[in-house]
């Protein structure tokens, strides 16, 4: 710890839990349909003197319970690599369809669970909600979306926000790719932290990026 903070503190990977990859659902999947997605990304930090988004990853399965409600379940490989179990499960309810200037709105509620495999007392559960608005563009094939995640816990900071803006681009009938820019924890001062976040808008939180690919069955 001589010499102050260091890129070696890749503890930052866990900050990515705030968003857990790209958003679970932007538009309804459709009743009975299934999809699988892989996403990765996180706040930008200097790792061995290279500024990169930390590659926090999520594999997520989504199932259309009804025409406007999706169920999703995710596993977190990056956490697994560190001997931790990480999962999330939740519902996404599509509240409105797009009409004129009014975006389509999707309200998500999830539970995130983490536990070190050798220490059951380390188990943590965090409720999270998200509100995502979206517009279709370019012949209605592509989506531009925006909104925020909010993760909650029983110690300060009690609510950790992550505003985001992203786009979803279909690749053929089955595949789509997502790209998001996020501002992790904008309400928290990020100067003088153990991790040296590279992008700190107004010295609060950390900016980052996430990307994902999904396949609809």
């Amino acid at each position, binding site marked *: 710890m001589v010499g102050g903070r260091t890129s070696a503190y890749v503890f930052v990977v866990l900050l990515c839990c705030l968003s857990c990859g790209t958003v679970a659902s932007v538009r309804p999947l459709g009743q009975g349909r299934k999809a699988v997605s892989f996403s990765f990304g996180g706040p930008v930090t200097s790792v061995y003197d290279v500024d990169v988004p930390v590659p926090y990853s999520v594999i997520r399965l989504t199932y259309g319970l009804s025409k406007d409600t999706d169920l999703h379940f995710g596993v977190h490989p990056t956490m697994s690599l560190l001997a931790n179990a990480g999962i999330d499960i939740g519902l996404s309810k599509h509240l409105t369809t797009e009409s004129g200037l009014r975006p389509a709105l999707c309200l998500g509620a999830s539970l995130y669970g983490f536990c070190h495999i050798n220490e059951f007392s380390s188990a943590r559960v965090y409720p999270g909600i998200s509100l995502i608005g979206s517009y279709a563009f370019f012949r209605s094939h592509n989506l531009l979306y925006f909104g925020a995640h909010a993760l909650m816990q029983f110690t300060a900071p009690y609510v950790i926000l992550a505003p985001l803006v992203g786009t979803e681009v279909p690749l053929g009938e089955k595949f789509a790719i997502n790209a998001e820019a996020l501002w992790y924890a904008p309400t928290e001062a990020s100067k003088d932290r153990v991790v040296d976040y590279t992008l700190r808008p107004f010295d609060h939180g950390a900016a980052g990026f996430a990307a994902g690919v999904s*396949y609809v069955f």
Partner: protein
Amino acid sequence: MNMRNRVLLAVCVVIACTRVLSLDDFLFDPTTIDEYLRPEDFDPEWETRFIIHDSLIEPVTLVSMGNTIYGFFVRGNPDSALHNQVSILYFHGKDENINRYWARIEYLWEMGFNVFIFDYQGYGKSEGSPSGEALFSDGAEALHYLRSRADIDESRIVLYGWSIGTFVTTYCAADVMHPAAVILESAPASITALLRDSALLNLTGSYVADADFDNEKRVGDIACPLLMMHGRADDFIVFDRHVPLVWDAAHEPKDSLWVEGAGHDDIPFVLGTAYHQAVIDFITVHVLQ
């Protein structure tokens, strides 16, 4: 293979990959060397400053977890009134090796204290690799060695840790032997505190590291006087996020030295003679009287 099986395969791969990474290695930043140098050999500025005579520096080798570790026992300044009355076991920080820490050793030596400094496994010439277990083992072996010396007073051993070395200090003081006193400089509260500092979530340190580094937990088991020093301007181990956790858990008697304008690395140098006086006063009151 259909898509469903591919998904199952991917999940199995994730599970199979469990435990392949540990961030413990990132806690340490050692530099290995073939030979230890005198400070003036690698830092010209030292030429007129380093004043410990060679005859007072005794190379020491120990064995920890089957690996040879290297250190130096430095006999205290013969001109000091406190000469040879107290022996300090010094646990250095996470970077480089002993070569980096001679300035700090010299300060303590000037006060008259004997100082034993050693390199953890994987640092300097010491064999092996650093880990939480290795640092604790190295610290315990160093303490056993110091206690075994016939030419020092075993009841007047003081443990002094800086930064990551404070984790070893509290481990030795709480779990190996109660020393005469403990000095913690720029002490992180725990791996958990470091993690929460960066991740904001109330996760435990075990999520990212196997090392059981926890000053907040162990300081409560220390049954001897404690001096804590911390820089108010420490932008790494930030005062408000670490010091209260350790300080509140520590028992009396305990003294504090919160240094305005000092960062993580420079408390002795910012304080200058005041550092000398603070250490001497603490040891005089709590060890010598």
